[in-house]
C-alpha cells in the first residue's frame, strides 16, 4: 500500500506532479493541463516520448524514466494509452493517478474491459485512481488546478470552505461558473468521473475531517454504497453540512410492486426520507446546490424560523413576506413580530414615514447609516432569528459604503444575515463585492428566502442529532 485509504493529503497538496501526455502543441489537453499546473509552483515532470522539454520543463521520454517519490500523476492521454501509462505509474509507486480520458465503462463493453484493467492495476499496486473520465481536481487555496476546460472561477478567492464533489464534469463546471459569477468560496473541486476506485465515500471521509472544509456539496448520479455513504455522512453532519444533489431516479427494483407502500415510494421518496434521517440536505438542481453550499458554508444555522426583512422598497418587502409565508421544503418560516423597542429604534434611525414593522421599509430616501442602525436594532431583537436585507444601490442617498455597513454587522453575526441585491447589469459585480466582504448575497428574493430555509433545515438537523446522536 503506497497510500493510506483515507489519507488523500498528497493528492490535494502534492509536492511533485507528473503529467503523462504533456505537450507543447496548443489546444492539446496535455498542454492545457500542464500550463494550468505551472502556477501551482510544484515540481512538474512532463512525460512525452519525443520532446526534450515541455514549455521549458525537462521532459521524460517514459514513465519509467521519472524520478522516485512523485505524489500525483495526471494521465492526459487517450483511453488505451492511459491504461498502460497507469500501470507504469503504479509500478513506480506513484500513490495517486488522475485519469482524464473517457472511453471506459461509459462507452460499452470494450471500454468496460479497459476500466476493469484500471481497477486491477489499482488493487495490485495500491495506487489510488481518480476517474477515468475525471475532470480532475481544483484547489484554489493551493493554486492547484488540473481541469482542462475553461471554468468561470475568476471570482473564486482562496480560503473558501466548500468541497464540491461531482460525478458529472460538465454539471460541475457549470455550477462553478454559476457560483463564481456572484462570489463563492471553494475549498476544493473534485471531478469523480467513472469512480473506478476513488468515490464519494473517500471524499466524504477526507473533507469531513479536513479542517479547512466548512461544507460538503455532492452531485451524484449513483451512490455506490448507499448505506455506508449515509452512515459516514452522519459522522460528518454534526460538524459540517452535507448537501447532496442526487440526480437520476432509480426504478424501484425489478420485482413487481404490489403494495401501496411500493407505489408510494415511486421513484425516490425513500431517498428523501433517508437523507433526512441521516442529516443530509437534499437539493434538486445546480442552482440549489450552489446556493445551499454558499450559505451553509458561510452562515450559522438559524436559531428559529422568524424572519425580519429590511428593504428600501416596499414592493420587495411584500414579495419577501409572501415567500416567507409560503410553505416549501417542509420548512415553515414566519415573519417576525418586532419588539416595540426595535420599532422605536428603527423609527429614530429613519423617518417618520418609514414602515418600522416587519417588513421594515426604509423607503427610497434611506441612506447607508439608516440601514446600519436598523440592522443593529433587528440583530438585537430576540424575536428575530434571520434577517433578509435588500440592498439597492439606485436610491440617491445610498452609496457603495452600504456594502461595508452591512458587512460590519453581518460578517460575524451569530444571527444569519442574507442579502438580496439587484443592480441591473452590475448585479453580479455587487454580489461579488458582498461576498468579498464576507456577506452572503443572492440576486432574487426567492433565492434569498430559500437560503433562509436551508439554514433552518440545518438547525433542525443539528437538533435531531443532539436528541439522538
Amino acid at each position: 500500500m503506497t497510500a493510506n485509504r483515507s489519507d488523500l493529503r498528497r493528492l490535494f497538496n502534492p509536492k511533485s506532479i507528473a503529467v503523462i501526455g504533456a505537450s507543447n502543441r496548443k489546444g492539446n489537453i496535455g498542454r492545457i493541463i500542464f500550463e494550468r499546473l505551472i502556477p501551482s509552483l510544484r515540481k512538474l515532470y512532463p512525460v512525452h516520448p519525443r520532446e526534450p522539454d515541455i514549455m521549458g520543463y525537462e521532459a521524460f521520454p517514459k514513465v519509467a524514466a521519472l524520478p522516485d517519490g512523485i505524489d500525483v500523476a495526471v494521465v492526459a492521454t487517450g483511453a488505451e494509452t492511459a491504461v498502460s501509462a497507469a500501470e507504469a505509474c503504479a509500478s513506480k509507486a506513484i500513490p495517486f493517478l488522475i485519469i482524464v480520458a473517457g472511453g471506459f465503462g461509459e462507452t460499452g463493453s470494450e471500454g468496460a474491459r479497459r476500466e476493469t484493467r484500471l481497477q486491477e492495476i489499482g488493487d495490485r499496486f495500491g495506487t489510488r485512481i481518480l476517474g477515468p473520465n475525471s475532470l480532475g481536481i481544483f484547489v484554489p487555496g493551493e493554486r492547484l488546478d488540473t481541469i482542462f476546460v475553461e471554468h468561470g472561477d475568476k471570482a473564486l478567492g482562496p480560503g473558501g470552505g466548500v468541497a464540491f464533489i461531482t460525478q458529472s464534469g460538465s454539471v460541475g463546471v457549470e455550477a462553478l461558473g454559476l457560483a463564481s459569477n456572484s462570489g463563492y468560496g471553494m475549498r476544493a473541486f473534485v471531478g469523480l468521473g467513472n469512480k473506478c476506485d476513488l468515490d464519494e465515500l473517500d471524499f466524504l471521509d477526507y473533507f469531513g475531517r479536513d479542517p479547512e472544509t466548512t461544507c460538503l456539496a455532492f452531485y451524484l448520479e449513483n451512490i455506490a454504497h448507499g448505506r455506508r455513504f449515509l452512515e459516514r455522512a452522519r459522522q460528518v453532519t454534526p460538524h459540517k453540512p452535507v448537501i447532496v444533489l442526487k440526480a437520476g431516479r432509480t426504478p424501484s427494483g425489478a420485482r413487481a410492486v404490489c403494495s401501496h407502500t411500493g407505489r408510494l415510494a415511486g421513484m425516490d421518496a425513500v431517498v428523501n426520507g433517508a437523507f433526512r434521517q441521516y442529516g443530509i440536505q437534499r437539493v434538486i438542481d445546480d442552482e440549489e446546490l450552489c446556493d445551499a453550499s454558499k450559505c451553509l458554508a458561510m452562515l450559522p444555522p438559524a436559531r428559529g424560523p422568524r424572519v425580519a426583512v429590511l428593504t428600501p422598497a416596499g414592493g420587495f418587502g411584500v414579495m419577501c413576506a409572501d415567500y416567507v409565508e409560503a410553505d416549501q421544503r417542509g420548512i415553515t418560516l414566519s415573519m417576525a413580530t418586532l419588539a416595540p423597542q426595535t420599532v422605536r429604534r428603527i423609527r429614530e434611525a429613519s423617518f417618520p414615514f418609514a414602515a418600522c414593522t416587519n417588513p421594515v421599509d426604509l423607503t427610497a430616501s434611506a441612506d447607508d447609516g439608516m440601514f446600519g442602525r436598523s440592522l443593529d436594532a433587528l440583530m438585537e431583537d430576540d424575536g428575530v432569528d434571520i434577517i433578509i436585507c435588500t440592498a439597492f444601490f439606485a436610491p440617491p442617498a445610498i452609496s457603495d459604503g452600504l456594502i461595508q455597513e452591512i458587512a460590519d454587522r453581518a460578517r460575524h453575526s451569530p444571527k444569519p444575515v442574507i442579502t438580496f441585491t439587484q443592480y441591473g447589469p452590475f448585479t453580479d459585480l455587487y454580489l461579488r463585492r458582498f461576498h468579498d466582504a464576507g456577506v452572503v448575497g443572492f440576486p432574487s428574493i426567492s433565492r434569498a428566502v430559500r437560503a433562509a430555509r436551508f439554514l433552518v433545515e440545518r438547525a433542525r438537523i443539528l437538533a435531531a442529532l443532539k436528541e439522538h446522536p
Partner: protein
Amino acid sequence: MKSIVDQWRSELSVTDRPDEYEVKGLLAQLELQVPRGIRLAPGVTGIVPDFQGPFAAKVCSADIMHKTDLKGVHLNLGPGNLAAALGALNSAFPEASILVEEMVAFEGPEMIAGGLIDPGFGPAVMVGAGGILTEIAQDVAFRLAPLNEAEARRMLMELKIYPVFEGFRGLRLDPTPLARLMVTVSRLVDTLGPHFDQLDLNPIVWSRAGWTILDAKLMLHKMI
C-alpha cells in the same frame, strides 16, 4: 424478535406465503393491536364467533391481492346475515379460507404503515395518511429501517395531517404509540432480512385508546 419471526415462518400453512390471519397473528405476537378474528377453512359456514359483532368477513388468501375489488369483503354483519355472507364468499372463492373479525369502531383518519426494499439503500419503512385516499393524497414519509422512536416521531411530524395528533377538531389521537408501532414495523422488516419483500398495514385506526391494524399484507421472497 428473531425467534418469534423464525418460529412464525416455520409454522406458515404455505411456505413464505402468509395470509392475512397469519400476518395478524405475527403482529399480535409483536404486541401490535389487531381485531379479534377467526379463520374458517374453505367451505366452512356454520360458525358463531366467540366475540361480539358487528362482524367483517373477508376472503383470506395470499393469492388475492385486491380482495375489495373482487367483492371478497363483507362488512357490518350481524348474527342474522353472517351466514349468508360466508355462503357468498364460499361460492365466490371455494378454495380460500375466510377471516371473520370483529368490526372496530374508531375515530379520526385512517393511517397506513408499510415497508419495502429500496434498491439503493435497502430496507425502508413508510407511514402516512391511509384508507382509500392513500394514493391520491400521497401524504407519506419514508425512513430506512431500523429506526428509533424519535425518528419515527419526526416521520409523523412531516405529514400534512400531523395536526390530527395535536388536538385538531377535538381529536385526541396519541402519536406516541403510532411512533412505537413504526419502530416495531422497522424492526420486523429488518429482522426478516433477505426474506422481506413488501409490507402494507392499511388502514390503521385509533380505537380503544390505541392504534389497531385493520388490514395487513406481508409479502416475503420465495427463497429457492
